[in-house]
């Protein structure tokens, strides 16, 4: 027993000596970078708000390009009609809704057919993007003017469903939206504005997503925003807030936006077609598509732009149980790894400019390797404390630097967010958010480290990705 203990101590001592400083360096750098990104995002917000005030509601207008809202759906019979109606009611001069029923085994199509009085049309769907699964039918409402198209296809996953939707879409812009997400009435106007402002260069935009758990939803619209009741969901609110500030707005300002989240992105249709659409075999989905678009644009030497709209426009239900959350985080990290690896050729390649030299390396070190380094640090500190070789001051230092600072970074993010958009009106909600920011670092974060590493490991072992079903807790739908 003593021998084992001595051996372990020696190992831990060596680990400690080698890594104690680098780990601290890592945390210093990552938190510093977050701070910089938040400040950058703050400037972006300020500019965005100034433009908004200056332009005095000039959304839409003459040059607004038509938008096809593509909504893949699988077994969504409960909410699909409300969702579709809400999408049709979005404020926009010219838009259509394309619902793709991805081989649902429930009554998704049935409720749609009844609600919209669908009739089949003999349309042959163009194969601008390759779709392996069979297209079973195309349907439109009998009234002849509701701009809805429902496509039935054999089940083959979200990516293929979206590709099929892109094929059917007729407008020059495509927005991808999940059937369980909620859009604000002005979402299309806001997220398409970069296209309207710069129609020849803009190729992709994304909108900010927030958690809808706990809020009141009526007719597919968010009418009263509130913090979720479960702490798991509350902490995710904080996460999303920080991630969108740090991971999207900040990068967008620096011209290096590579991640447009899966829940709400808008693309030029011809660019999506040209790039080949979503890769059905990739778990990285939209992230992978955005990288592919970047690479293609730079390969072609095209003058292009990708922009992020900082205003919250999309609301989605986040996992409220640990098991669903775990599955999600494993999948996300796996997707991140596989995509970054697939595009490793762009790293430090002069052709890919700032993305190759700054954005991608940053993602490698501070997103991909983050859980590894953090996990490492935790293990070393805990083991070291147990074995008496790490003194309490170091352990405290580690805690402060790794987590204490994270709380302050989150606080800074929250402040900027609150200043810009003040969505949460009640003091109670602000305090809850603060509490969640603290709690995040006591257990939640460590769990995500474990899950992310798990996803990565599963990918390295070439395990099959299981998507699973998220049983919805449902919104607080008012009966009316």
């Amino acid at each position, binding site marked *: 027993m003593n021998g084992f203990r001595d051996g372990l101590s020696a190992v831990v001592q060596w680990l400690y000596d080698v890594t104690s400083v680098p780990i601290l360096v890592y945390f210093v750098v990552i938190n510093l970078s977050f701070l910089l990104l938040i400040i950058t995002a703050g400037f972006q917000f300020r500019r965005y708000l100034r433009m908004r005030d200056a332009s005095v*509601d000039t959304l839409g*207008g*003459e040059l607004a390009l038509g938008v096809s809202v593509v909504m893949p759906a699988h077994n969504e019979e409960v909410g699909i009609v409300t969702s579709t109606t809400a999408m049709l*009611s979005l404020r*926009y*001069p010219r838009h259509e809704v394309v619902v793709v029923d991805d081989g649902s085994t429930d009554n998704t199509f049935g409720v749609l057919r009844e609600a919209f009085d669908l009739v089949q049309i003999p349309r042959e769907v163009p194969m601008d993007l390759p779709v392996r699964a069979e297209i079973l039918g195309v349907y439109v409402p009998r009234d002849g003017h509701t701009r809805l198209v429902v496509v039935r296809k054999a089940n083959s996953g979200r990516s293929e469903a979206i590709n099929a939707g892109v094929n059917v879409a007729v407008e020059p812009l495509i927005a991808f939206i999940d059937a369980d997400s909620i859009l604000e*009435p002005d979402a299309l106007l806001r997220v398409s504005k970069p296209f309207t402002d710069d129609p020849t260069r803009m190729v992709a935009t994304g909108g900010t997503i927030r958690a809808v758990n706990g809020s009141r939803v*009526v007719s597919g*619209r968010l009418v*009263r925003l509130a913090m979720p009741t479960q702490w798991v969901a509350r902490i995710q609110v904080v996460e999303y807030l920080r991630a969108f500030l740090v991971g999207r707005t900040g990068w967008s300002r620096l011209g290096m936006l590579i991640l447009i989240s899966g829940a709400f992105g808008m693309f030029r249709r011809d660019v999506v077609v040209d790039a080949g659409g979503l890769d059905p075999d990739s778990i990285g989905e939209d992230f992978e598509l955005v990288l592919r678009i970047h690479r293609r644009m730079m390969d072609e030497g095209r003058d292009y732009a990708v922009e992020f709209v900082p205003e919250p426009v999309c609301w989605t239900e986040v996992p409220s149980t640990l098991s669903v959350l775990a599955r999600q985080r494993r999948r996300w990290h796996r997707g991140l790894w596989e995509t970054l690896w697939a595009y490793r050729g762009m790293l430090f390649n002069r052709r890919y400019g700032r993305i190759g030299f700054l954005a991608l390396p940053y993602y490698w070190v501070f997103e991909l390797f983050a859980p590894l380094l953090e996990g490492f640090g935790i293990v070393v500190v805990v083991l070291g404390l147990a074995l008496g070789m790490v003194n309490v001051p170091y352990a405290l230092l580690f805690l402060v630097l790794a987590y204490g600072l994270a709380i302050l970074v989150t606080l800074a993010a929250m402040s900027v967010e609150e200043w810009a958009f003040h969505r949460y009106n009640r003091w109670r909600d602000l305090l809850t958010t603060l509490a969640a920011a603290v709690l995040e670092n006591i257990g939640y974060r460590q769990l995500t480290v474990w899950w992310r590493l798990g996803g990565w490991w599963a990918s390295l072992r070439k395990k099959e990705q299981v998507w699973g079903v998220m049983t919805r807790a449902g919104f607080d739908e008012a009966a009316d």
Partner: protein
Amino acid sequence: MTGMKGHAVAMPDGARVLIADDDPDIRDLVEFKLTQSGYAVEAVADGLAAWESFQAERPALVILDVMMPGLSGIDVLRKIRDSEHGAVPVLLLSAKSRDSDVDTGFAVGADDYVIKPFSPRELLHRVNGMLARAR
């Protein structure tokens, strides 16, 4: 009271009008204009309040701003049209832009459309006209 060119326009007789707009300026000036002309006006600030007020009060005419957070004017219009007393005349207010919302508005069943910046006097005439036709 006479309208344009000497046509007699019936006195509003306290008919109930509901206006929903998140902009307090618009709310207040429309409320003033219509009240001055004899209507009983209820002004609310968002779509949900509009829908709830509509169900409770059954106004004779509804004015909805298209751009409201939460339930937009179009959303409320759709709910009104789908409801039991859905035939009420509805006028939509929208911000300056060409054809924006107009097609959707009329497709969902709006009776009339006014684009900002608008003439308050013209709005009043339209309201009078819509109510006269509805009778």
